[in-house]
């Protein structure tokens, strides 16, 4: 569902952060994207979103070449993806509940049609008591869980998560990983960017995409 061919990216006039990246993500697959800090994990995820244009190479999403993609197509593609940003990107003026419900709301769905679903997911990630507060009063871990819940709520076909367990304790990290695994069993392809080795070791069945020196090494 995602295919990169010889993709290179540089920010402005800087050095190439990513070089000759070629790989693909299959439907219902599970992979960790790893590598040292500054290796370009976030950058790679931003290319999939797509929030960045590659400086060279081809990126194909769900069968569409991202170069010259129509806006409507892009919107449709994004509805098939869920994203957890490293810096969460929750909307500060909305409650946790409203933030999590956002992907459903922007599809124009009626609030009553998804309320139960959203509340259930919020309870599952342990935010049942915090659903009516605004993000500024949430702890880092709570924000992270809200961001994860927002990415999951629309049951995307592809989930991109950037350091989704960076701010939570190991127990909760395991619980969240289980959530991702359950989701994967239900058919969602998952990419988790992390440098948490312990987390990766908990799920051996996953592919590992390792970034180093701007290049990608794949370990199946």
């Amino acid at each position: 569902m995602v295919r990169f061919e010889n993709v290179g990216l540089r920010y402005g006039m800087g050095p190439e952060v990513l070089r000759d990246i070629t790989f693909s993500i299959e439907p219902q697959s599970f992979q960790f994207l790893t590598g040292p800090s500054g290796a370009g994990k976030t950058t790679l995820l931003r290319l999939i979103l797509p929030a960045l244009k590659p400086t060279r190479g081809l990126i194909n999403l769900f069968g569409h070449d991202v170069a010259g993609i129509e806006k409507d197509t892009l919107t449709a593609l994004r509805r098939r993806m869920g994203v957890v940003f490293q810096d969460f990107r929750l909307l500060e003026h909305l409650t946790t509940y409203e933030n999590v419900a956002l992907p459903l709301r922007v599809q124009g769905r009626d609030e009553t049609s998804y309320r139960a679903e959203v509340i259930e997911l919020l309870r599952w990630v342990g935010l049942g008591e915090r659903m009516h507060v605004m993000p500024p009063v949430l702890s880092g871990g709570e924000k992270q869980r809200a961001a994860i819940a927002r990415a999951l709520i629309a049951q995307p076909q592809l989930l991109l998560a950037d350091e989704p367990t960076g701010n939570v304790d190991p127990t909760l990290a395991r619980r969240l990983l289980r959530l991702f695994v359950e989701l994967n069993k239900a058919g969602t392809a998952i990419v988790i960017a992390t440098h948490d080795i312990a987390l990766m070791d908990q799920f051996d069945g996953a592919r590992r995409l390792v970034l180093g020196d701007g290049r990608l090494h794949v370990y199946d």
Partner: protein
Amino acid sequence: MERVDWCSETGGSMSMISAWRDRLHDWANRMPRLVQQPWMTRLPWVVRSEEDPARHGQQPLVPAASIAGRALVTVIAIMTFLAGLTAGAAQLVSEASAGWRSSVAREVTIQVRPAPARDVDADVARAVSLSRATPGVTAVRAYTRAESERLLEPWLGTGLNFDELPVPRIIVLQIDPERRPDFGALRRSLADTVRGATLDDHRLWIDRLGTMANTLVLLGIGIMILVLAATGLAVVFATRGAMAGNREIVEVLHFVGASDDYIAREFQKHFLRLGMRGGAIGGACAAVFFLGAGALAATVVATPGGTQIQALFGTIDLGGGGYLAIAAIASVVAGLTAIVSRLTVRRTLLELG
């Protein structure tokens, strides 16, 4: 629904307040969901249970309160106020001119100039009987010599000996506006029978008044168009500012799958709210202005200066139509704000993409 017991510590002495609170609470509960606004959640008697739909109420996606928003509301209010004033003034002028014109058009005058070796009084009498015989003339009144002289006093002062002045004599004819007399025929027969008599049907005045009033009304329309254009531009800038300020929100909305159209609609809703608030404030100020001016004019009418003002402008009373026009302007301004912001958002999103 449950509610907080914020009076309970103070005990029974607060029972009256608590009874009131119950009533308010009751009232808040009975309101249909549509009417339940987000701000109501801040009211102490409206505490919502988890299953209460309004508790999950949908905050606008574009944050409602901002300094730029308040500035825009102020600009829109001022613009609406100015447009309302212009429209009201134009309406007053056109009504006053219509009033003058119809009262002027209900009268014509005959002037009889005294000539040497002629009996003016006889000439006046002949002109009066001729006028009376003309169909469409409902009343005829000849000013006496003394009255004619008094008409000149404001210009020439008192204490003058008018005997040496050939003061013209005035005959005022009231006419039936439905069945206007044939002035041509009257003029001809006057010329035949009374030398030195001229008929003035005020046509020139009426035309000039009409032109002046129309010019003022056109000017008013021009000013309104300028004001609306300025409002539109202010909204363009405000929208661009709001989008720059909420870039993060726009980006997140895109990533969670919002279409440009959806985002544009959200901004449009936001600006429609601002526009409605500004329009309502400005329109209300304009309406209050005219109400105040009318009341002030009514108290001034008792004084000599006041009667002149009233003679010029009639009473300063916009009437239902005028206030309706102000309300219409306020609505147009609000609608314009929404549409302009939507177009601006769509343009900006295209540029971003």
